[in-house]
């Protein structure tokens, strides 16, 4: 089985980054250039392997291709866990995404992280992350997926907190990890519910068992599905666990591009796509609403943010909400399509912002200005002439995310919105879903163009540093150019389709949706039929809302005909809520953290003052009492009584017996005679 390249190459892709991590963690400091060539080399090699797999997939062009291999890990008879990998079209596309963005990040970091104080550890952790992400992608059972899931969380913690000297970074990494853990609790409960009902961890046995409807069904299945979905809520930063992603921007920008745009946060979506057959209609409805709420909430918050990375962070949360919404409404392959296109253009947006921030850093450093925030858009403006490559690439990606035709984002977002419309047509009570979806699309277009206009257009805000702004080196502009080109539609509609508004192509041919295993659900064909009917309506609506958004942005920020300040004053409290991220963190603090800390303090007090002092010390006192009594018994009783008694007895006996030695002959004579008598009498008896 290992000879089959379809199995051996994924295994190589999986373990090479782990090898790079181990080498760099132990020997990184001593290698020349701190070993970055080890990391870059291994990742680029895995990318080439992934390209090979992708080409093979295109050559086979088989939508039902699936290959798996497993080894037994724990076998106790009744309890078995097999570790294995599952390779099908979904896996191959995901592997390509992960390795591509990871390679771009590695190359980008060559320049961005040059001279960093923990350079080799940074690359080591990147390798660890790539290994764990590939682990999630290749898993064929829930336990492997869960293990890699946790590892991804750990890598995120390590990388967000890369500059842990800053308190804000250390706190953000802790927040990310802990929020993830809250989601993982649900994930684990879901896994265990499924295992206790089905008796297996691997996907295919679970799907088969659910389709018979005997082992687990109805409310239990819904709860299991929602439990598993909790993992996605945590990992993909959905409402209400979305609070960690904006704070995670404390990490280096390439890390933000890799993890918090393209891959790690997409893991939740990938998991939902893989496990779609276990979700009951009830669970799917909940999923859809959570996705929709997340999308609109994050979009509203992004409007007022001034930090360039925060805008992109909320944009990511919003787009993830879209993907989850797609899963909930049934068109889950559209979710995966959006994951693919979003990975490309969002990573590119982050790289471009990284390039801008890098340039700002240099300029401020030249001017010896350490107070102004290099990431604040109000300090930027007019960078268009100074950084042309960055500008054009970012513009292309912005057009993609806004859903403008001719770009990749239009196709994927269109598919999602068609799905929501179809869902609402058949379930009119869920009208909010498409409403939220289209509104979020409009707002997305608005704030993304706001970002472009504030950063690159208009007059520079800080003229003093403007002269030092320059384009970034090739190591940074290379990935930017690559991913910018990948934001066009054409790469997703080959081989046969050149129509920019039709999404048919290799993707839709090879990634086909499967029927849900839950008995009584709509089949994949039925869902696709409904979505198809709603297609043109959705297309028209999405073009309309995108135009509205872009127009508003132009009016407010380009031509400055509408004053942003006046509007924000008129919608006072809405602006306030948006700027302060709906006060989520503050409310969580007041209603969750503080009571819990109080409880912990109370328990701690009980333990210290009460339990320790009285109970434990009481035992101690009791022991001391016992030992005192025992000691007294030993000293006074035994020592004085027995031991000294022997001595005293000997003394007394000696004193008494001394009297025999009288010194008088006649006494001795008497003793002799008496002795003879005694002996004789004794003999007689």
């Amino acid at each position: 089985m290992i000879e089959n390249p379809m199995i051996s190459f994924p295994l190589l892709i999986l373990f090479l980054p782990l090898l790079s991590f181990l080498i760099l963690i132990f020997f990184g400091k001593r290698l020349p250039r701190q070993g970055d060539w080890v990391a870059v080399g291994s990742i680029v090699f895995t990318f080439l392997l992934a390209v090979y797999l992708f080409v093979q997939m295109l050559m086979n062009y088989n939508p039902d291709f699936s290959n798996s291999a497993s080894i037994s890990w724990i076998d106790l008879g009744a309890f078995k866990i097999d570790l294995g990998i599952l390779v099908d079209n979904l896996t191959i596309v995901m592997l390509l995404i992960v390795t591509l963005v990871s390679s771009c990040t590695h190359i980008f970091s060559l320049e961005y992280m040059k001279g960093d104080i923990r350079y080799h550890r940074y690359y080591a952790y990147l390798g660890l992350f790539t290994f764990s992400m590939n682990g999630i992608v290749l898993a064929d059972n829930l336990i492997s997926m869960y293990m890699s899931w946790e590892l991804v969380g750990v890598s995120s913690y390590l990388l967000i907190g890369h500059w842990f000297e800053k308190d804000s970074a250390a706190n953000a990494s802790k927040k990310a990890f802990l929020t993830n853990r809250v989601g993982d609790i649900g994930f684990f409960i879901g896994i265990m519910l499924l295992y206790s009902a089905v008796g297996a961890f691997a996907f295919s046995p679970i799907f088969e068992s659910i389709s018979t409807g005997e082992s687990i069904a109805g409310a239990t299945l819904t709860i299991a599905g929602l439990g598993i979905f909790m993992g996605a809520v945590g990992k993909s930063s959905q409402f209400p666990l979305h609070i960690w992603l904006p704070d995670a921007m404390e990490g280096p920008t390439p890390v933000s591009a890799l993890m918090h745009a393209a891959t790690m946060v997409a893991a939740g979506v990938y998991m939902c796509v893989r496990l779609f057959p276990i979700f009951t209609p009830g669970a799917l409805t909940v999923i859809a609403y959570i996705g929709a709420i997340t999308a609109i909430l994050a979009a509203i918050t992004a409007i007022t943010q001034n930090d360039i990375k925060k805008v992109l962070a909320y944009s990511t949360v919003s787009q993830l909400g879209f993907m989850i919404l797609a899963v909930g409404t049934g068109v889950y392959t559209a979710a995966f399509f959006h994951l693919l296109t979003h990975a490309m253009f969002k990573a590119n947006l982050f790289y471009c912002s990284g390039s801008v921030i890098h340039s700002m850093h240099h300029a401020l450093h030249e001017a010896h200005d350490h107070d102004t925030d290099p990431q604040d858009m109000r300090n930027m403006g007019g960078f268009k002439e100074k950084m042309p490559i960055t500008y054009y690439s970012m513009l292309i990606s912005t057009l993609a995310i806004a859903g403008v035709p001719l770009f990749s984002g239009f196709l994927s977002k269109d598919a999602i919105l068609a799905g929501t419309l179809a869902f609402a047509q058949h379930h009119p009570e869920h009208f909010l879903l498409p409403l939220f979806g289209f509104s979020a699309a409009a707002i997305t277009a608005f704030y993304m163009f706001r970002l472009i206009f504030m950063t690159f257009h208009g007059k520079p805000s800080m003229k003093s540093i403007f002269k030092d702004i320059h384009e970034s080196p090739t190591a940074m502009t290379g990935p930017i150019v690559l991913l910018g080109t990948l934001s066009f539609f054409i790469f997703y509609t080959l081989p046969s389709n050149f129509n920019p508004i039709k999404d048919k192509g290799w993707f839709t041919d090879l990634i086909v949706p499967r029927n849900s295993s839950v008995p009584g659900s709509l089949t994949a064909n039925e869902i696709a039929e409904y979505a198809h009917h709603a297609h043109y309506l959705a297309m028209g609506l999405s073009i309309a809302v995108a135009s509205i958004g872009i127009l508003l942005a132009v009016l407010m920020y380009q031509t400055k005909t509408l004053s942003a300040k006046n509007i924000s004053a008129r919608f006072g409290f809405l602006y306030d809520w948006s700027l302060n991220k709906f006060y989520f963190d503050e409310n969580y603090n007041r209603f969750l953290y503080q009571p819990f800390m109080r409880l912990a303090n109370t328990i701690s007090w009980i333990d210290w003052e009460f339990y320790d002092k009285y109970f434990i010390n009481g035992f101690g006192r009791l022991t001391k009492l016992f030992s005192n009594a025992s000691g007294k018994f030993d000293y006074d009783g035994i020592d004085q009584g027995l031991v000294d008694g022997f001595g005293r007895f000997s003394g007394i006996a000696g004193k008494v017996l001394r009297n025999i030695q009288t010194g008088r002959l006649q006494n001795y004579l008497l003793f002799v005679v008496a002795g003879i008598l005694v002996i004789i009498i004794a003999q007689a008896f």
Partner: protein
Amino acid sequence: MNNIDSYLFISSMLFCLGLFGVITRRNAIAVLMGVELILNAANINFVAFSKFNGMNLDGHIFGLLVIVLAAAEAAVALAIIINIYNNMNTINVDEAAELKR
């Protein structure tokens, strides 16, 4: 008087009385007298056994020798006692127990 038991009775009586005297008396000469009693008791024994063994005269010889020894011993003992008396002015066996004065 026709069997040996009577004589043995007498001799053992004398012996014990003599022993009592040796153990008990504090005057050196009184002790000597006790010793004489013991010797006499032994003598009676010798002679009695001599008679009741077919008049074997060995007993008589022994008795004679004992008498001679008693005499010699009494002489020497009295000489010593007189010497002690001259030196320590007492012949109380308790008080004359010191090696030097």
